[in-house]
C-alpha cells in the first residue's frame, strides 16, 4: 500500500522507537502535523520556540541515551533551531531534527519562508539530508538515526519539502544501513591497548581523565572496575560528571577552569594521564604548552580527530570506551598485584594532602545573605535519595552545580559545555521530564539564562512537565561580573541585570508555582515545599551578588596556578561598595 510522505515519516519514527516529538508547526509541515494529530503512538509536545524544541530533544537524548527528535518549519523555524543544533554538535548529543522546506519546485526561488536549511546547518550538524523524492524518505530517515547515534554521536538534519510530505510512495523500512564513507571504529587496536596496560602498571602517579564519551558509550561500570582495580584517582570533565560516582573515594571531582584543587594538581603532577572519552578542551588544558608537563598520555576516543588535536598523545587508542576498557581491564586483571599500591602510596599521600589543603569552601553566615553554594549543597542533600536528573544553565551557577551536586550515575547531568548556551537548562530539563514522567528533574538556573527560554514555561504547564527550577538569582550575569571584577577593574559593563522580573509572579502568570527564599533559614523548608509540588515550580533564591566561583584558572593560565579566593584588592573593594545589596534586592523583589 502506498503511504504519504507524512505517513512514512511517522512509520519510520515508530520503528526507531520514538515516543516523543518536540515540535512547532508552520505552513510547509502542516501535512505532517495533521497526520501526527490522527495517531496516538507518538506524543507531540508543542513548544513555544524552536530553540526550546531543540534543547528539549537534547535533554531527552542525554537522559535516555537515545536520539532526541524535533520537528520545525522552514525559514524562521529552521533558523530558530540552529542554536540547539550547534549545541548538540559541540556536546555530541544524538539528535534528529526534521525541518520543513518549501516545495521542491520552488527551492532556490526565494520562496516565502525559504531558507537554505542544508547550508545553514552544515557546519553544526554531523550530517544533513535534503529529501527530494518521497521514495527516498524512509531510507534517509533510517540513515539519519544511524548516523546520529553511532560513532561519536551528533545532530542530523533531515529537510523535507512540502510536496515530499504530501506525495505517496510504497513504504519499506530498510533493516540495515551501509554507508561506505562512514565506518566508526569500536574495537581498539590490541597492541596499543597492551601498551596502555603496561604504562598503567609502571606509572607512579597515574590519573584517569574521563569525559562525556564514557557516558555515550555506557562504560561507567568498566571505568569503575578499572579505577578500583588499579586504585587510580578519577578526574571528570564538566561533561563527564556522573560517569563515575561523585562520592566515591577515588573521585577527585571536576577538573579544569573551575575544577577542584586536587583534580588540577593531580593532572599537573601526574606521570600518566589516561584520557577516556574526553577531548582536551581548552577549559581543561589551560595553557597547552605547560599542560601535564611530566606525563605520558594515553587517549581513548572513538573520533580520531579528537586525538592529537590539542595536545600530543603517546598512546592513542581509537575506539569505543566500553570495548577498549573491557579489554584493558582483562589484561590488567591478570597483572595487577599488590605492588602498584606500594608504588603509588606517595602519590596518594600527596593527593590527600592537596585535598585537605584546599577543599571547596564558602562561608555561609547564619543570618547573612544566601550563598549560592549553600543552595546547591542543600538541594543536593535533600534530593540525593531520589536519584534526580539535574540540568543547568550557563554561568557561575553551572559551575557551583558542577562542584557541589555530586552525581552518582550517568545520564543524570544535562549541561551545555562546548557551546555554553544560556537558556539550555530549562528546556533540557523538560525534555528529560518528558522521557521520565515520574522522576525528579531539577533545573539549576541563573537569573540571566532562564530568561532566554522562559517562554517554555507555557509548554511545561500545558504539557504537564513538573520541572523544579531553582534560580540562583544574583541580579547579574554573574560569570561576566566575575571576569569584570578580576580582569576589568570592576567595571560592570552590561552585566547588571537589575531586579526584574519578579520570578514568582512570572511563574504564577504561566500557571506554575512560584516560591521565594527570603533568608537562609527558610531555604530547606521552601526547597521541600517545591519538591513536594506536582506542578512546574520556580524557586527564586536571591543570592549574594558578589560571590565568585573558585578555584579558577584564568583563561590561558597553567593548571597548578589556581586562584583560590578573591584577590585582596577585590575583597577590600566589596566592603562598603555602593552596589546593590542583597537586602535592597529583596525589597524590590517582594515589593
Amino acid at each position, binding site marked *: 500500500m502506498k503511504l504519504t510522505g507524512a505517513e512514512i515519516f511517522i512509520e519510520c519514527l515508530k520503528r526507531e522507537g520514538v515516543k516523543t516529538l518536540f515540535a512547532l508547526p508552520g505552513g510547509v509541515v502542516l501535512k505532517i502535523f495533521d497526520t501526527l494529530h490522527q495517531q496516538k503512538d507518538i506524543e507531540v509536545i508543542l513548544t513555544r520556540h524552536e530553540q526550546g524544541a531543540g534543547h528539549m530533544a537534547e535533554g531527552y537524548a542525554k537522559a535516555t541515551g537515545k536520539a532526541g527528535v524535533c520537528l520545525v518549519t522552514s525559514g524562521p523555524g529552521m533558523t530558530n533551531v540552529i542554536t540547539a543544533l550547534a549545541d548538540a554538535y559541540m556536546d555530541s548529543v544524538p539528535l534528529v531534527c526534521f525541518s520543513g522546506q518549501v516545495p521542491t519546485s520552488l527551492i532556490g526561488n526565494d520562496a516565502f519562508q525559504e531558507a537554505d536549511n542544508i547550508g545553514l546547518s552544515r557546519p553544526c550538524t554531523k550530517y544533513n539530508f535534503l529529501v527530494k523524492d518521497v521514495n527516498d524518505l524512509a531510507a534517509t530517515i533510517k540513515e539519519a538515526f544511524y548516523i546520529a547515534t553511532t560513532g561519536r554521536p551528533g545532530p542530523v538534519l533531515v529537510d523535507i519539502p512540502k510536496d515530499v510530505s504530501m506525495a505517496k510512495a510504497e513504504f519499506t523500512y530498510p533493516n540495515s544501513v551501509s554507508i561506505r564513507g562512514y565506518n566508526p571504529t569500536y574495537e581498539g587496536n590490541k597492541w596499543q591497548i597492551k601498551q596502555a596496560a603496561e604504562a598503567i602498571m609502571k606509572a607512579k602517579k597515574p590519573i584517569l581523565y574521563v569525559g562525556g564519551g564514557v557516558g555515550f558509550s555506557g562504560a561507567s561500570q568498566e571505568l569503575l572496575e578499572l579505577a578500583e582495580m588499579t586504585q587510580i584517582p578519577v578526574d571528570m570533565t564538566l561533561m563527564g560528571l556522573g560517569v563515575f560516582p561523585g562520592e566515591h573515594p577515588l573521585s577527585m571531582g571536576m577538573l579544569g577552569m573551575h575544577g577542584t584543587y586536587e583534580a588540577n594538581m593531580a593532572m599537573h603532577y601526574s606521570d600518566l594521564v589516561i584520557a577516556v572519552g574526553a577531548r582536551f578542551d581548552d577549559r581543561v588544558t589551560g595553557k597547552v604548552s605547560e599542560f601535564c608537563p611530566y606525563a605520558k598520555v594515553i587517549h581513548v576516543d572513538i573520533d580520531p580527530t579528537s586525538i*592529537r588535536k590539542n595536545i600530543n598523545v603517546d*598512546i592513542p587508542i581509537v575506539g569505543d570506551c566500553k570495548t577498549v576498557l573491557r579489554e584493558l581491564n582483562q589484561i590488567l586483571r591478570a597483572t595487577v598485584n599488590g605492588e602498584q599500591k606500594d608504588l603509588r602510596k606517595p602519590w596518594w599521600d600527596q593527593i590527600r594532602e592537596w585535598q585537605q589543603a584546599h577543599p571547596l569552601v564558602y562561608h555561609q553566615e547564619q543570618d547573612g545573605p544566601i550563598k549560592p553554594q549553600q543552595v546547591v549543597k542543600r538541594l543536593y542533600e535533600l534530593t540525593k535519595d531520589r536519584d534526580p536528573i539535574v540540568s543547568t544553565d550557563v554561568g557561575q551557577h553551572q559551575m557551583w552545580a558542577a562542584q557541589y551536586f555530586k552525581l552518582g550515575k550517568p545520564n543524570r547531568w544535562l549541561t551545555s559545555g562546548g557551546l555554553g548556551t544560556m537558556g539550555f537548562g530549562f528546556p533540557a530539563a523538560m525534555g528529560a521530564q518528558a522521557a521520565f514522567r515520574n522522576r525528579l528533574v531539577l533545573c539549576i538556573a541563573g537569573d540571566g539564562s532562564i530568561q532566554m527560554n522562559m517562554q517554555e514555561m507555557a509548554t511545561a504547564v500545558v504539557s504537564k512537565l513538573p520541572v523544579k527550577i531553582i534560580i540562583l538569582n544574583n541580579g547579574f550575569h554573574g560569570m561576566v561580573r566575575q571576569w569584570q571584577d578580576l580582569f576589568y577593574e570592576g567595571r560592570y559593563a552590561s552585566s547588571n541585570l537589575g531586579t526584574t522580573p519578579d520570578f514568582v509572579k512570572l511563574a504564577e502568570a504561566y500557571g506554575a508555582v512560584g516560591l521565594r527564599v527570603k533568608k537562609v533559614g527558610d531555604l530547606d523548608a521552601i526547597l521541600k515545599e517545591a519538591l513536594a509540588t506536582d506542578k512546574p515550580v520556580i524557586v527564586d533564591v536571591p543570592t549574594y551578588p558578589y560571590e565568585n566561583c573558585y578555584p579558577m584558572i584564568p583563561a590561558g593560565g597553567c593548571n597548578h596556578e589556581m586562584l583560590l579566593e578573591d584577590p585582596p584588592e577585590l575583597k577590600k573593594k566589596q566592603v562598603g561598595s555602593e552596589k546593590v545589596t542583597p537586602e535592597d534586592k529583596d525589597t524590590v523583589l517582594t515589593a
Partner: protein
Amino acid sequence: MEHIISVTVENKFGVLSRVAGLFSGRGFNIESLSVAPTLDPSMSQMTIVTSGDERIIEQIVKQLNKLIDVIKVVDLNETEFVSRETAIIKVHTKDADRAEALRIVDIFRANVIDSTPSTYTIEVSGDPKKIEAIINLLQPLGIKDLVRTGRVAVAREPVRPVAAQAKKVARD
C-alpha cells in the same frame, strides 16, 4: 609544508561545499582544489593542495576522513607520486612577437590551441615550476588571460588510505 591530498568522495549534491566548508570553517589552507568524476560515476576524485605543519596536516586528513561523504583519503606526500597542472594562457602577439611566442611554446612543449590575428592561446601542462617559468617568459609579450586547473596527482604505486597508515605510525 605543502601537501597534496587525494580525496575520493561520493559524487553527489553538496559534497564540494562540505569539503570547502571544512577548510574554511577550521582555518585550513587550500592552495588549489580540483574535482572531477572517476571511472566509477558514483564517485569523484578531488585533489587538494594544502599546507601546514605536521599536526595541521594530520588534522586535515582526519577531518576529511570524518566527513561522511568522503570514501578515501590519501596524503600523497607519504608516497611517490606524479602531478600535473594545466594552464591556458592567452597572449597578445603582433608581428615579431608571434615568432617569439612560438619559440617559447616549442621550448616548453606547449601547444597553441587557438589563434587570432592579435592573439595566441597556449596550453601548457607540467609541474607548477614549469608553468611559472613559461608565464614569466610570456609576460613581456602581454598576457591577456590566464587560467590554471590547479594540480591533479596520482600515486605511483597503489597506496593504502591514510586511516590505516595512521595506525601503523602510532605503533612505531
